[in-house]
């Protein structure tokens, strides 16, 4: 386990703080957390607060949701390249019918949204999802 558990990462995100792990060897940031630097593999990492902003790289509108999340569909999922480098998967805070290819390249701010837990999800108390809002 790294210095930042998934639980600590999401608890911070729910409070609006995006945490990452800065590598003492190469200086790059790993996020979401893992045991080693996602860029160079070194394991001397320190927890840092990242800039809560980035750019949409790609997206989709989920019309058919998995069991347990049916009540949330349709919803927009996207990948965002954060300004500190790492990419994140999260929800985009727009109406699904407003999603179009024009979203790619748009700037967003990053926060956390608490959604109902799901039986197989590792945190049985809560499920915090990165929520991206168009800037």
């Amino acid at each position, binding site marked *: 386990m790294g210095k930042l558990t998934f639980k600590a990462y999401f608890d911070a995100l729910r409070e609006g703080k995006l945490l990452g792990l800065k590598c003492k060897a190469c200086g790059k940031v790993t996020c979401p957390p893992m045991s080693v630097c996602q860029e160079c593999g070194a394991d001397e990492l320190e927890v840092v607060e990242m800039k809560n902003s980035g750019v949409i790289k790609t997206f989709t509108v989920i019309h058919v949701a998995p*069991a347990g999340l049916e009540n949330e569909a349709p919803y927009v999922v996207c990948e965002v390249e954060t300004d500190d480098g790492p990419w*994140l998967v999260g929800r985009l805070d727009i109406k699904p019918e407003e999603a179009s290819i024009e979203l790619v390249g748009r700037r967003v701010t990053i926060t956390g949204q608490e959604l109902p837990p799901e039986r197989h999800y590792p945190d049985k108390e809560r499920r915090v999802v990165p929520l991206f809002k168009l800037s």
Partner: protein
Amino acid sequence: MKRDLKLRDVAVLGVGHTKFGRSPEKSLMDLFGEAALEAIRASNIEKERIEAVFVGQHVGELTDGVSNFAPFAAAEIGLAGVPAVRTEGACASSSVAFREAYLLVATGVYDVVLVGGVERLLSAGTALGTRALATSADGVYEFNAGLTFPGIFAMAAILYSQKYGIPLDELREKMAHVSIKNHKYGALNPKAQFYKKYGDLKVEDVLNSRMIAYPLTLLDCCPMTDGAAAVVLAEASIAEKHVDKPIYVLGAGLSSAGGIYRQRDVTVPMSRVRSCKMAFEQAGLTPEDVDVVELHDCFTIAEIIASEAMGFFEFGEGADAVAEGKTKIGGKVAINPSGGLIGKGHPVGATGVSQIYAIVKQLRNEMEPRELQVHNAKIGMTDTLGGDFGTICNIILSTERRGEA
């Protein structure tokens, strides 16, 4: 893998395959037993010669309340007592089983083994099936946002469109040709889930079918499927004593990756590039040598991405290649003449061995019906993708033994 490792030649003997589709009346074990016994009978070998059983199985826990499948599977076919191992690599589970089994025969641990795979996703229903499959993405940082497999490949399609400057509407039309081709072949294949169905699709049919994860429609997606497949593998001289046309394993690649957000540009999946390089180097072959391919078309865009990363087309040219017919039977390289996952079905744990089954039939010139036979096929290759490019496995098969190096 060590380059100087001395490997014995290994060949496929008999193969077995259930009719893919909906099998509510057959348990995972019923399906496995059917495919395994067909493979053993076709091998003309005493069952007692089989020294180990390897089974690819992905989500039996969720769909059927079953884990620890391998020992029960060995017992089911009268082989209780042999080492029995389940491999789990999502949709590549049985390709991983095949590769591990191949390496253990090649290195002399065993002489004869059985490899199978099985899954029941159609009987599980769409919502549970979608949830079960989603376990093979990152269960924390991808699943929490509600990302599904169609969603993952939908995002890959948008990345592809952006990277190569192909307007999304134009790309969707090119992607539709993957569905049209694979459904055409699947409609002819009696083992396929969509046998005699969807054999004459038009681009508009694909574009206008129900939206699953924008921009992928239902006809961009492979179906949920129940089914099983199995093969017997043996050291080559043993295989030659038992069957007329042993099909030799020349190369077996396997590679790994983390979530899509770590991989970033999944239009060039490095796990697949590495796995194919490993397989081609072992075989001493290049993509130009391959006559027939069964690759992982879980979605239309997935076939395009795979056809490039495997080396059959330049990056960015795969979409045009399928639209121009270069991947049809008789084209530059025949891709998914069995119907692939889209036309034949995708019983996840069985898919890798089902691909092996299809290539073995091609290389034996036994593909039925004959219009699905690739003329004079000598070298065939499989490609199986597990999760969101997390596991990639590639197998190269041939009518001839490995050339003297």
